[in-house]
């Protein structure tokens, strides 16, 4: 009996928890056309261990509080079981955390391919199921880039579709905000919180902040559409917003600072209305850029995005001094962003459709006839 007992314990000592199920995971993942999602075996090469969602691309946290240095605590320890050499998540949040990391790994490579990986620090700090209890509508079905911690938070999802952290277009959209923060907002001394909260700003700065916010949103949509190849990347997650944010939707001229000033002084107009308008202007910017790429052929979309990412750094240089002195028009930023963009009759026609101040067509090296 004693010998049997010792044998049992010896066998037990040989088994340990060290087995790792490798670097292939069963994840909810987009198909090649980026429109449908199914369960696929996805490789993640850069995780330090499958039992901690942390690596050079990102650190993913669950229900964590955010501080000035990012999310508090330790990264997600996913629940996994090995099945035929594949790590299978045992709950949706383990699967979501791993899918988010896999997307960040690919976004890091994508940023590298467009020469933008060096614009922001890595690994990125990402949160899922982040609780935001400020009583606003931001607490559910939303995602936020939070400049204070240089982090991206996905709040709980209560709709019937694809959770936002699994939607690679929305992940890319939020990721772009980090680029904009580091390359444009910080040099302009306009961190995202200052844009969100207009109190304490002069009116000129507050209205210009809305213009910058519109550009931030519009470029983020264009970045996400370029990354996914899908101009309706919100579909499946936020279906009620698909139409208003569809990059193939109708075009209109961009608002001038004078129009924005008039809007802001209409009776009954609040900050949220102005923010909604800046989002709408952002969509027009994204549609313009999407159509410009369409003119050139989508094969060149990555080259064009690389050009825009490089031109971003010129925004604070060329508009920094004007930002605190006078109202900046939405279209005034176009020549800065489109510097060195190869223009032809088709692209010039598109620009004429959105630019109010026709002299801009010949500025910044754009070279279109007004």
């Amino acid at each position, binding site marked *: *009996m*004693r010998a049997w*007992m*010792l044998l*049992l*314990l*010896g*066998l*037990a*000592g*040989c*088994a*340990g*928890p060290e*087995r790792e*199920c490798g670097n292939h995971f*069963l994840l*909810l993942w987009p198909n090649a056309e980026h429109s*449908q*999602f*199914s*369960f696929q075996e996805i490789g993640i090469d850069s995780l330090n*261990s499958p*039992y*901690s969602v942390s690596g050079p691309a990102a650190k993913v*946290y*669950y*229900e*964590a509080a955010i501080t000035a240095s990012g999310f508090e*605590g*330790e990264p*997600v*320890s*996913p*629940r*996994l*079981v*090995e*099945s*035929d050499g*594949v790590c*299978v*998540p*045992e*709950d*949706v*949040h*383990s*699967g*979501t*955390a791993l899918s988010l990391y896999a997307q960040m790994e690919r976004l890091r490579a994508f940023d590298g391919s467009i020469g933008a990986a060096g614009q922001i620090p890595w690994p990125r700090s990402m949160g899922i199921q982040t609780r935001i209890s400020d009583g606003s509508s931001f607490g559910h079905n939303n995602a936020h880039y939070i400049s204070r911690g240089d982090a991206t938070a996905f709040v*709980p*999802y209560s*709709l*019937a*579709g*694809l*959770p936002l952290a*699994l939607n690679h277009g929305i992940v890319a959209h939020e990721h772009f905000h980090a680029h904009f923060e580091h390359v444009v907002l910080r040099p302009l001394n306009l961190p995202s919180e200052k844009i969100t909260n207009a109190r304490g700003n002069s009116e000129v700065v507050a209205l210009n902040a809305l213009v910058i916010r519109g550009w931030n949103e519009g470029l983020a949509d264009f970045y996400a559409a370029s990354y996914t190849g899908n101009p309706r990347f919100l579909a499946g*997650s936020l279906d009620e917003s698909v139409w208003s944010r569809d990059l193939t939707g109708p075009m209109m001229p961009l608002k001038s600072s004078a129009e924005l000033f008039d809007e802001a002084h209409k009776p009954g107009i609040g900050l949220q209305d102005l923010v909604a308008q800046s989002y709408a202007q952002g969509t027009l910017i994204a549609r313009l850029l999407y159509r410009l790429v369409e003119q050139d052929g989508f094969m060149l979309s990555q080259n064009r995005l690389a050009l825009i990412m490089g031109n971003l750094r010129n925004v604070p240089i060329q508009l920094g001094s004007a930002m605190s002195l006078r109202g900046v028009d939405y279209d005034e930023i176009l020549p800065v962003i489109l510097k060195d963009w190869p223009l032809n009759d088709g692209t010039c026609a598109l620009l004429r459709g959105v630019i109010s101040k026709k002299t801009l067509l010949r500025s910044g090296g754009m070279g279109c006839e007004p």
Partner: protein
Amino acid sequence: MRTLVVVLALIFGVMAHAQEEDARAWRLGLGLGVDTRLQSQLSPNYTEPRSVGQWSARMGYKDWGLSLEYSQEKARSNSGSYEVATSTQSFGLWASYQLRLTSRWKPFFTAGYGRQLETIDSRYQSASASRTGARDFWGLGGGVRATYFSHWFVEGQVRGALIQDRPRITPSLVLSSGFVF
């Protein structure tokens, strides 16, 4: 960790030798219990208790005991249309050694080895995937046991288990009761 196992095995052996003379008869029994595990949440800074019912078939000889335990648990989580349902069947073989004291409540040490069989069904709208997997576990623990009316036993024990695919030790409290003959 393996060194600890070997040391405990030696202690068990010495104790068994010391009490070899005081023999008792064979015993067979059945028990029901509740296993409350303190398992890590996704955020490893936090743990949460999770209870699961279990039954056991027992065999004893002298101061030694052997218990075959079985439990089944189901879990389901969802976010939007993404849903994961997990079913776990757990089989464990636990050996125990009881110290012979004059008090009614007698302490015992236990060590076990087992297997968890998992079925994971993942769904998203019309997409689905069903996978099965298995993981081993082994553990050590100790507790106290009392027997009333010669056959009815009540016991409580604390265990620590190392489970494959789980990076940390899972502590648990097992309360069980049953009959031995």
